[in-house]
């Protein structure tokens, strides 16, 4: 709280001439409209005066004649700095020189909204396919999917089907392409490693292989429908996405969520975290060639899945959160069963913690590998277990409490080593911590209503909502224009934040470290990508209509 107020004071005192409008509608949430091109001053000020200030993301909104760029800064709360550029000539100065972590966010805005950032080191496509026609910016309000783009995409100018041509092997350096299909990646994404012998010289990545256009689709669905849409962004952290989105909409509509609902949200959210972390610890075992660990961890994850099924009716996609509360109550018998399962999993989780602490081969493979120093972690604005593994105790649950976290005692796990081992250990310990939170929440469940009725139409307004997803800080930005449909939904998942630092971590490491480091980031590419379907085999590209998305979102949303 202090940090946040300090941040606002600093901006007020030093940048009074640049602030057009300052609005603090809720505690720890500020929206500041700046004069054009003054965003750099504001961001440098915050970085200088506020400890551990990070950029959450940049979200762009097409306002009709202007494009509004929101720089969401996390400093105790969320300070949203607004910089407007004209739609005809959308050019602004980059902030990558101040904050390298903004690299991917600026590329995303460039890709989807067509804003050019002056001075950006490599302003290239991020999400959209290489053969996407120039001058088409899908997140602008007037953009419509074309009926038939097949012919267009086959023409010479626009299509660039095989990216392999650009890879030149020079001397002893060879290019090793991992992905879109590779055993280390459980979702399609392409990494190109320049390898000299067994050493990685450099790494490049290409995202967008599972870009499903969820942000665009969300604009054409009503708020209450969007809850189900954002749930499909990621199967594993679905509760984080729905919690985050519901909070944003509740914020816009000034809805008072009942305390029992907040506790139930917390419980489901933490169950999500437990099974996500256990999943990753198992996958880490697999990536490091420790199959037994993998199989055992996944076996012990099952009681959690059973619990989620018992509470929500579904193993994975809980469909639990709704705007204004939750959909189902928890029966006393379920509470009892859950407490039993929690106890059981806690024992196993403690055992796995000792495995990661003591197993010699695991430590040999993870210690000192993929080191991200404290200053680099801040510079690249990484999130979640990655930043906590680098010795910075950033956790939205503590810094900006939401749901019931303000009332539940828990510790923020933090390791100072900054290597792969530390990142895995953070997760191993967080499992136990999360189980404690569930335990506490179940014992202190307040009585009362589950849900308040919320109208379909929401008042005009905007809201930023942050939650601590299993992989790190998740941020949703929702803007409403007074109808039942959101004007803009922006999602930034933690993986996108963490990927910026990946080339830095992997440079100079061995090939064998690639799976270890990728694993320790716990990447979730379906979260990271969200618009167009691309068949990389023949460069054929198509759009899905809303109905098709509706019919298939189950399938594509998983994992």
């Amino acid at each position, binding site marked *: 709280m202090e940090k946040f107020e300090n941040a606002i004071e600093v901006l007020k005192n030093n940048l009074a001439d640049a602030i057009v409008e300052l609005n603090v509608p809720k505690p720890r949430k500020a929206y500041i409209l700046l004069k054009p091109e003054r965003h750099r001053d504001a961001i440098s000020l915050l970085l200088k005066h506020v400890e551990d200030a990070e950029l959450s993301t940049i979200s762009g909104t097409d306002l009709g004649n202007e494009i509004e760029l929101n720089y969401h800064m996390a400093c105790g709360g969320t300070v949203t700095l607004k910089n407007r550029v004209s739609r005809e000539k959308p050019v602004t100065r980059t902030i990558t020189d101040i904050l390298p972590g903004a690299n991917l966010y600026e590329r995303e805005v460039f890709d989807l909204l067509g804003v050019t950032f002056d001075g950006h080191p490599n302003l290239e496509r991020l999400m959209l396919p290489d053969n996407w026609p120039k001058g088409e910016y899908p997140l602008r309000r007037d953009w419509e999917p074309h009926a038939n783009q097949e012919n267009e995409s086959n023409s010479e100018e626009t299509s660039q089907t095989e990216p392999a041509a650009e890879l030149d092997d020079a001397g002893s350096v*060879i*290019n*090793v*392409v991992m992905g879109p299909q*590779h*055993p*280390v990646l459980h979702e399609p994404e392409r990494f190109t490693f320049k*390898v000299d012998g*067994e050493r990685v010289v450099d790494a490049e990545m290409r995202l967008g292989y599972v870009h499903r256009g969820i942000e665009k689709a969300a604009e054409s669905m009503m708020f209450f429908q969007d809850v189900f849409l954002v749930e499909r962004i990621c199967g594993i952290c679905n509760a984080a996405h729905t919690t985050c989105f519901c909070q944003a909409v509740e914020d816009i509509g000034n809805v008072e969520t009942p305390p029992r609902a907040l506790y139930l949200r917390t419980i489901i959210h933490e169950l999500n975290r437990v099974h996500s972390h256990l999943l990753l610890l198992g996958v880490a*075992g*697999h*990536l*490091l*060639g*420790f*199959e*037994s*660990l*993998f*199989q*055992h961890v996944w*076996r012990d994850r099952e009681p959690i899945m059973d619990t989620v099924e018992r509470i929500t009716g579904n193993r994975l996609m809980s469909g639990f959160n709704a705007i204004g509360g939750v959909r189902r109550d928890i029966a006393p018998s379920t509470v009892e069963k859950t407490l039993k399962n929690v106890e059981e999993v806690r024992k196993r989780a403690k055992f796995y913690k000792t495995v990661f602490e003591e*197993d*010699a*081969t*695991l430590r*040999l*493979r993870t210690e000192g590998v993929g080191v991200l120093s404290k200053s680099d972690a801040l510079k690249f604005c990484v999130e979640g277990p990655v930043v906590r593994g680098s010795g910075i105790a950033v956790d939205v649950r503590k810094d900006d409490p939401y749901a019931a976290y303000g009332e539940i005692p828990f510790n923020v796990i933090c390791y100072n080593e900054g290597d792969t081992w530390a990142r895995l250990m953070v997760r191993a310990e967080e499992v136990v911590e999360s189980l404690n939170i569930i335990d506490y929440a179940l014992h202190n469940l307040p009585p009362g209503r589950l849900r308040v009725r919320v109208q379909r139409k929401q008042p005009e307004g905007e809201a930023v909502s942050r939650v601590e997803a299993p992989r790190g800080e998740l941020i949703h930005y929702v803007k409403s224009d007074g109808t039942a449909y959101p004007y803009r939904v922006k999602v930034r998942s933690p993986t996108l934040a963490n990927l910026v630092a990946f080339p830095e971590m992997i440079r100079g490491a*061995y*090939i*064998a*470290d*690639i*799976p270890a480091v990728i694993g320790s980031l716990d990447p979730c590419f379906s979260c990271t990508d969200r618009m167009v379907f691309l068949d990389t085999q023949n460069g054929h590209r198509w759009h899905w209509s809303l109905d098709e998305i509706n019919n298939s979102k189950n399938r594509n949303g998983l994992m």
Partner: protein
Amino acid sequence: MALDLIFFARVLVFPGFLFLLVLVLFFDWLERKIAARFQNRMGPSYTGPFGILQPIADYIKLFSKEDITPKQTNKLLFVAAPILAFSLFAFALFFIPIDGSNVILNSSFEGDLILVLLLVTLANFGIFLSGWASLNPYSEIGATRVLTQFLGYDIPLIILAIGPAFLSKSLSIVNITASQTLPFALFIPWSFALFFIVLQAELEKDPFDIPHAETEIVGGYETEYSGRKLAFIKLSEDFQFLIGAALVTTLFLGGAHGPVLFGVPEFWHVFWFMVKTVGVVFVLEYVGNVSARLRIDQVVHGSWKLLIPLSILSLALTVIVEPSLRSVIG
């Protein structure tokens, strides 16, 4: 003529080709089943009793699948390398006395231990060539790793194999096994333990399965292979596994000789050989299942800085204690 019949029967049926094949498939199944139980899985369960026919089903499937040779590869090398590796491993197995004598009767000679180790080395070069001929970055990295790792571990393996030969004053495998009234593992446990570690690396088992680390380099040297040629690579891996286990059994555990020998000696020879080899396989699998994969640099450091000096030391220790052991060994 009768001699020829026996010769053919021994080479082709028992204890030659067919028997070895069945043995290899059995160990393949055993290995998978042990690994599965360690990992809290069922393992092969449906094909035959306890899924024991699963390996043979897999090989039938592989042999009947489409066999692709990539355009840019060196065709001759690409086709010949797996077959070469397979035949060298199979040939090496002919010198392991499973029923008390070699597959080809009276073919044992002073120095066939060296021949077997040489054949295993050459066969590994065959595996290296198979990856090198594939012209795929993953295969090339895999092939380089095979060679890097193999060169580091073949030397200590050979040094350690001298220990038993020294105790029995013979370089013939048959003589080494025959001279073990009590297994050498009891007299020189240091060599025995080291041999196990080195063998683990030589067989590319966890924590040394670096050449085909799937999460790093997909299939390693076998990435480009499919169908029959892949079957040959898989078979040669299985044969190498059997050779490794058989070498421990013959050099350190008394081979086909055991405490109970009556009636048909051949039966008991095969029985004891199997019992010991199964034990060795179990230990190899155990180690493989409780460790993570190491990195190639760690493995190379481990071999040149640790295992080679240690194996020389253990050989020296064997030479020093040999006179006092002489009375017990007889």
